[in-house]
């Protein structure tokens, strides 16, 4: 877990893996319960018959964001203590394209492929096998990719800083954009022929 509870010593370090396991089990259960173990779910986003992936990701993002803002405002947590992944521009773009192809071709993301394996789906097993092959190739050829992998580091970049916006204004606009997107997605879903699965 990245924190801030463990680095601050609220939860002892030894509980790290236990909490990770429990969160992972819960995450996998939620994925399977909402039908993500079927590759047709993710493909729905590309073919326009099911936008649940888009809704899940944006709901998670705006819910967590709203929670963080209010918790910070109440003084329950310190937003500045949160760990932010460093942003590598080039590797983010290229990695995003590769991962997008993987999504569209395989119909899984790494997490959903494991839930697929858990319920015995053969396509999920093949997908995960490919995942490990990809990891192996990347690791073996790392010296070749190293320059690209580490290029364009912008540190813990924040989009509202780059836009020169107040963070609260950006949060509000993101919520409005997400709700607008949900509405648009529902509109498209209605137009496109329903796929049963």
């Amino acid at each position: 877990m990245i924190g801030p509870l463990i680095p601050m010593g609220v939860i002892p370090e030894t509980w790290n893996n236990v909490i990770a396991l429990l969160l992972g089990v819960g995450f996998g259960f939620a994925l399977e319960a909402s039908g993500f173990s079927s590759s047709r779910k993710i493909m729905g986003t590309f073919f326009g018959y099911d936008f649940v992936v888009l809704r899940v990701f944006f709901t998670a993002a705006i819910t967590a964001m709203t929670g963080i803002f209010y918790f910070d405002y109440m003084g329950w947590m310190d937003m500045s203590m949160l760990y932010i992944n460093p942003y590598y521009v080039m590797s983010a773009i290229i990695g995003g394209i590769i991962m997008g192809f993987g999504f569209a071709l395989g119909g899984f993301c790494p997490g959903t492929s494991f839930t697929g394996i858990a319920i015995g789906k053969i396509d999920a097993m093949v997908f995960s096998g490919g995942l490990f092959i990809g990891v192996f190739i990347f690791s073996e050829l790392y010296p070749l990719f190293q320059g690209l992998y580490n290029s364009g580091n912008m540190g813990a970049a924040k989009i509202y800083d780059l836009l020169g916006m107040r963070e609260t204004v950006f949060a509000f606009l993101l919520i409005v954009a997400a709700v607008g997107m949900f509405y648009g997605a529902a509109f498209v879903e209605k137009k496109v022929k329903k796929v049963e699965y």
Partner: protein
Amino acid sequence: MNKRYMLLAGIIIALGVGILFMPAKDTAKQTQPELLLAAIDDPSRFLSTDDITDRLVKKDPALMLIDVRYESQFKAFSIPGAINIPADSLLSASAQEILNQKEMDKVFYSNADVTSDQTWIICKRMGLQRIYVMQGGVNKWFNTIVKAEKPAETAPTEAMDLYQFRVAACQHFFGSPEMAAAPKVVEKQKVTVVKKTSGAASGGGC
């Protein structure tokens, strides 16, 4: 459109409007008081005069010895190889450029420990890395290196070795202790600053 969706969308937008009215945060980057206290408690920032002298003699390229006394004091006497950043000009842009060189070990010294340690705390609070204090300051340096006391004949070998080292270091810097004792004008050294972009934060992620 489903009524439940409309309700949820309404709630999240209302919460978003609430966020809009939150006061602007003070985003100044400063060390947390708890972390600062822990860092002040930790004596590892203190480096001994002998250790610094050894690195000076060996011309350690990563060592940046910084005299935080007034310029007049610095000119009257300073440790060879030191640069002068008076404590009161610590926040000036030029001083910041010098201090922000991440690959250098910045070692502060003053007459004794007080000013250098205060400088250290301020720099720590600004989030600077690799900062140290030369314990005892220039007084101790002068008394141990320049006026090195010869140990008794019965002293252990280590004490004799240390004495030999101090005498040799003094000769390296000044030729003889008498020359060092005479105040002289030290020309201010020019420091070329290599600007570096901020390094990557520690790894992690999902």
